[in-house]
């Protein structure tokens, strides 16, 4: 088929990084960083998800058509979040800046 075959070494390497990042996220959550705890946890989660999508799900080698669809899907997810949060955060129910 079309895919150039990724060597197994790459998969094992990505796996090792994912496991290391899992330990990192647990370790970082034990530090007192205030609101940065949430930011750090989400940054690590996004990094892990990106590794899975790029290497395990082969998006790195996928056609631009597939990539365009993935970006469009994430854009639509962003629309949903922006519209929901712009409603709830602007109601004055809770002071903004406290939510983590």
């Amino acid at each position: 088929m079309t895919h150039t075959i990724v060597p197994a070494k790459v998969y094992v390497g990505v796996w090792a990084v994912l496991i290391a990042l899992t330990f990192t996220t647990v370790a970082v959550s034990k530090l007192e960083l205030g609101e940065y705890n949430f930011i750090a946890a989400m940054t690590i989660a996004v990094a892990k998800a990106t590794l899975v999508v790029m290497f395990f799900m082969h998006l790195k080698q996928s056609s631009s058509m597939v990539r365009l669809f993935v970006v469009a899907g994430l854009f639509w997810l962003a629309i949903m979040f922006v519209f929901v949060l712009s409603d709830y955060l602007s109601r004055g129910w809770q002071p903004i800046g406290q939510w983590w």
Partner: protein
Amino acid sequence: MALRPAQRKRTDKEDPLAESEVTLEALHPRELRHHFDTPEQQLESSLLGMWIFLLTEVMFFGGMFGGYTVYRNLYPDAFASTSQYMNVTLGGINTAVLICSSLTMAMAVHSAQLGKNRAIILFLLLTLFLGCVFLGIKYVEYHEKWVDHHIPGPHFQYADARYFHQAQILFFLYFAMTGLHALHMIVGAGLIIALIIMAARHRFSAEWYTPVEMIGLYWHFVDIIWIFLFPLLYLIGHTK
């Protein structure tokens, strides 16, 4: 079905249609459906369809993540207080188990690309086993919540009376999100069993292994959902 060269030459002269049949056979390998021009185009269509399905799943889970974000914004202290009742050790182990199962799934697809049928079955069995380990640990966690009366409803109990109602919202979200995730795992396990049966019947080859690749994408997607669920549900307010 391939005709010997000598035979083909003779039929060429006698019947032009016979020649076209031979050409079709050569152009269309067994794996290639006739409405596709090339195997590349056929794979591309499957990949695109699978990604679109997964993106609808992203929106589906996205609604729950949105609900979580809104309520966490409204009741930050109550949500942070629940994390002391989450079993971070079991959650962390489950995260590692899922990442390992993603590796074995990637290796199953890798074996399929190389046409190694026995390796496909071995890696799929490993993936299935790790998936079952995840669900088993999830069962232990759910049982803990049951014993602690942390299941939302008439029997819900919470040590901090101030957060009695608000913590119930978090536990509701916890069960809805992890439950939906576990449901996806169970469906995935069924699909892997189907793949194992197909592999045992030698249905896959280096030329055609599309189902392995598609179920692989699904399995990795379920892993990604857990990658986000773990910090959001287990690690909030973990410092306290």
